[in-house]
């Protein structure tokens, strides 16, 4: 059987440097796929020997998109190691920052990064604005009206884009996949989505401000400290609290009136596009509780997984079963290792000479992955030796399986409105929808955390817990929790008052890692298999599928040590084995 390879490098509209290669047969059906990260930064190595109080500021720089995730994780891992329990005010304030992050990250992902896989901007110029304006009412949730889709507004959008197109140089939209066979929106639907693309540029600024109120700035907020939060003046200021609440409501409103509606619209338009509704091949989903809303409550409270797409059975996590393998990663082989025992010796072997279908459909010389050998800077995390998908989809389906009432309500209503079966969640469309449903869950229920904070502030002013770091003691601890791209964990060990060892197992590593030593492939690679490409020169189906995970590759490739250095070793504490 004659097969051909299509190299896609760079995958754009993501964070970081990623390459994906697919092998197609004579019918353009994907037979195999390889995911390769092309950058290594080595931040954990840099953390060794540093003041534990500094760790959060450095881990934060792992990623500027999920800019708060690694900050909170770095701070929390140290608190966990030192046995610090931050005051409730601090914990809830951190949740407020999470809300801002999720709102920001998810709407920007869908509209600025992912939308160009679904929306044909030039087609929107052919739309009838009146018709589009009326159509927009079809997709909103019950009790809501659409936003930014009035006929007057849509006419303005068309005018603005028409002027832009007339330039003759589309700038960042040049060479897009407009007109591709798998683009399914009608001109009117494209116009609705385009209007929201522009509106989101405005809304994302509000979400960033929302974070800055208690975070000091965005990206890279700076108000967390080991033991609590520093923004005590802002928390004592009723005007600041009101400012936050107002912005939260604006974002919540936008989530329902635009984001939710556009996903319902996409479900209607793309419901029969095979590349979008092809069922995932990997049926394991893993998540960990996130967004604390009260002393003992979490908005998404599940810590565990489901297997084989089975929404009927929830399994609790056992942290000792988290391991990483490097068989196909650019490190000397160590076998499967728990993050506490991780050892990483860089061993870059590069790509090999090969051929790829190029942008014209011709076979040309290219560098390709050495599929039998090593081909990525990302490791392969496994749970109990099995690959797992993490991310909003995992968060939603596992919480659903566990019986989280809020998640069930949001998911069931969406399925009822779209007429989709639950099984449709396990697709490219479902992954993109789940991110929105996670945002909607925050929009509909998040203010509970805010109200609890306000109540608590009336009786308790503490924002930081005191602590000491005993230089004669050894500490170890970790953070685990879902961040916008899925389950993140940071593992640390402190000795002589400084960081002895630091490891992070990040969401995109779970999803984007190469095959492991047992030949089991991660989510990116295995879920592409079986997909048919309309035109191998323009592999939009692959790009759309990969974007549906919201790749964050800087996060995935920092997890390394320098040559020959051991990252320390000790056994997993069974105390951390349950959540």
């Amino acid at each position, binding site marked *: 059987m004659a097969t051909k390879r299509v190299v896609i490098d760079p995958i754009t509209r993501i964070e970081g440097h990623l390459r994906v290669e697919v092998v197609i047969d004579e019918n353009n059906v994907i037979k195999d796929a390889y995911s390769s990260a092309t950058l290594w*930064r080595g931040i954990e190595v840099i953390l060794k020997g540093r003041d534990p109080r500094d760790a959060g500021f450095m881990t934060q720089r792992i990623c500027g998109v999920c800019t708060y995730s690694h900050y909170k994780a770095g701070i929390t891992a140290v608190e966990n190691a030192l046995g610090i329990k931050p005051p409730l005010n601090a914990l809830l304030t951190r949740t407020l920052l999470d809300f801002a992050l999720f709102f920001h990250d998810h709407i920007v992902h869908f509209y600025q990064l992912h939308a160009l896989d679904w929306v044909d901007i030039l087609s929107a110029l052919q739309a009838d604005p009146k018709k589009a304006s009326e159509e927009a009412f079809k997709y909103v949730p019950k009790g809501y009206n659409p936003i930014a889709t009035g006929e007057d507004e849509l006419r303005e959008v068309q005018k603005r884009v028409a002027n832009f197109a007339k*330039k003759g140089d589309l700038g960042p939209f040049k060479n897009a*996949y407009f007109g591709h066979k798998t683009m399914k929106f009608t001109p009117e639907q494209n116009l609705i989505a385009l209007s929201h693309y522009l509106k989101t540029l405005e809304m994302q600024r509000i979400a*960033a401000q929302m974070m800055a109120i208690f975070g*000091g700035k965005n990206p890279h907020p700076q108000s967390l400290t080991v033991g609590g939060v520093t923004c005590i*003046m802002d928390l004592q200021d009723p005007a600041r609290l009101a400012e936050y609440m107002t912005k939260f409501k604006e974002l919540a409103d936008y989530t329902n009136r635009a984001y939710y509606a556009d996903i319902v619209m996409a479900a209607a338009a793309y419901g029969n596009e095979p590349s979008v509704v092809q069922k995932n091949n990997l049926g394991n989903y893993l998540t960990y509780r996130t967004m604390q809303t009260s002393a003992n409550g979490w908005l998404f409270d599940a810590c565990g997984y489901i297997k084989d797409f089975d929404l009927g059975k929830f399994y609790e996590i056992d942290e000792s079963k988290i391991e990483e393998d490097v068989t196909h990663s650019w490190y000397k082989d160590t076998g499967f290792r728990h993050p506490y025992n991780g050892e990483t010796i860089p061993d870059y072997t590069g790509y090999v000479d090969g051929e790829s279908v190029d942008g014209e459909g011709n076979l040309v010389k290219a560098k390709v992955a050495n599929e039998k050998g090593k081909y990525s800077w990302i490791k392969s995390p496994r749970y109990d030796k099995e690959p797992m998908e993490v991310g909003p989809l995992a968060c939603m389906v596992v919480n659903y399986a566990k019986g989280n009432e809020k998640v069930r309500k949001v998911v069931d209503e969406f399925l009822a409105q779209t007429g989709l079966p639950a099984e449709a969640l396990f697709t490219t469309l479902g992954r993109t929808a789940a991110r929105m449903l996670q945002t909607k869950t925050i929009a509909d229920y998040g203010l509970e955390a805010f109200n609890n904070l306000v109540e608590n502030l009336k009786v308790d002013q503490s924002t930081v817990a005191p602590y000491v770091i005993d230089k004669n003691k050894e500490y170890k601890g970790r953070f685990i929790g879902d961040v916008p791209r899925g389950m993140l964990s940071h593992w640390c060990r402190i000795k002589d008052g400084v960081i002895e060892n630091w490891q992070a197992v990040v969401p995109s590593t779970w999803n984007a890692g190469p095959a492991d030593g047992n030949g089991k492939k991660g989510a990116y690679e295995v879920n592409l298999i079986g997909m048919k490409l309309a035109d191998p020169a323009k592999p939009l189906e692959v790009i759309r599928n990969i974007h549906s995970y919201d790749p964050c590759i800087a996060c995935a490739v920092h997890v390394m040590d320098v040559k020959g250095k051991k990252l320390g070793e000790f056994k997993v504490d069974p105390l951390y084995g349950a959540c």
Partner: protein
Amino acid sequence: MLDVQKVKQRIAELRKLPGIAPKSISEILEENGFTRRDFLKWSGALAVTLGLPASFAPVVAEAAEVSDRLPVVWLHLAECTGCSESLLRTDAPTIDDLIFNYINLQYHDTIMAAAGWQAEENYEDALEKFKGRYVLCVEGGVPTKDGGEYLTIGPHAETGLHKLKRTAKDAAAIIAVGTCSSFGGIQAAAPNPTGAKGIHKVLSKPVINVPGCPPSAKNIVGTIVYVILFGQLPAVDNFNRPKFAYGLRIHDLCERRGHFDAGEFVEEFGSEEAMNGFCLYKKGCKGPYTFNNCSRERFNQHTSWPVQAGHGCIGCSEPDFWDSMAPYEEPLANHKFSSVSADATADKVGITILTVAGVAIAAHAAISAIKNPKE
């Protein structure tokens, strides 16, 4: 330096170049609901940001009008995309956004529609079509160890180092956006496993550094407009940072400066003093050693900045700050200063200056603390 005639001449030259847009920027702004007056107001504000006399406002406006003659290529190296995200936040005035769109962004892999071969084609086309005319913005440090193998880009697995050098060759101006491309950044912190460097270390052309982790959008846009105005790099300090943005210390315009002078310090986060907004120097604020305009411009449309949120500055726009400013929550003068950077000579100079300043400031803090009747 501030010769209006020269600037006008420069703009006249630019005007002769073919533009991308069929309409002038003022026409486009007008279509988007901005009046000529709004535009001039914006120009005036930007002139102030740039540290120019008010008489320059109309010239700034003229410069913005010819800005589409300068295509921009934005290259991502070893980075976290925080700088691009910062740029995305630009707002008040919304015109910034339009200006940025209008400057003809030819390549930016976070927002461009094309991927893979199509993206490569855009890149090569831009370099060819706008040879010698494009502004190169670089986000991220450049890994140099082992031939730069720690970063490859594109179907031919070209190293970031090679791509940077090749792209810089025909660039009209090179702007390092953020601390990573300016000074190496987080990945260059000791022991710098990938040999990451600021891009000026591997290029033979002048590079203007716009550091910060991330820098504010105003500083980025301001720098680009400056390049257009003068056809050269703006006035810079020792570290090639534009003086208009990095001319003052954070400390100079800090809202808590009065408390510093009065000797009122936060000793513990979460304390009464913290609630009263006292100075954060003793909690490690590096504002006295850090040159940037955060205390004036703040972030996210003036919503806040770290010091307002109760945390000290960590010195993120200074070279080598990850090593030289640590620990971030302790005053610099409290501990022996030892840098682990490779560039020992530059460091020694920096250390001396920092230490002298540090000792003086610590002395002030101590003396004022004694004088303070509250203590």
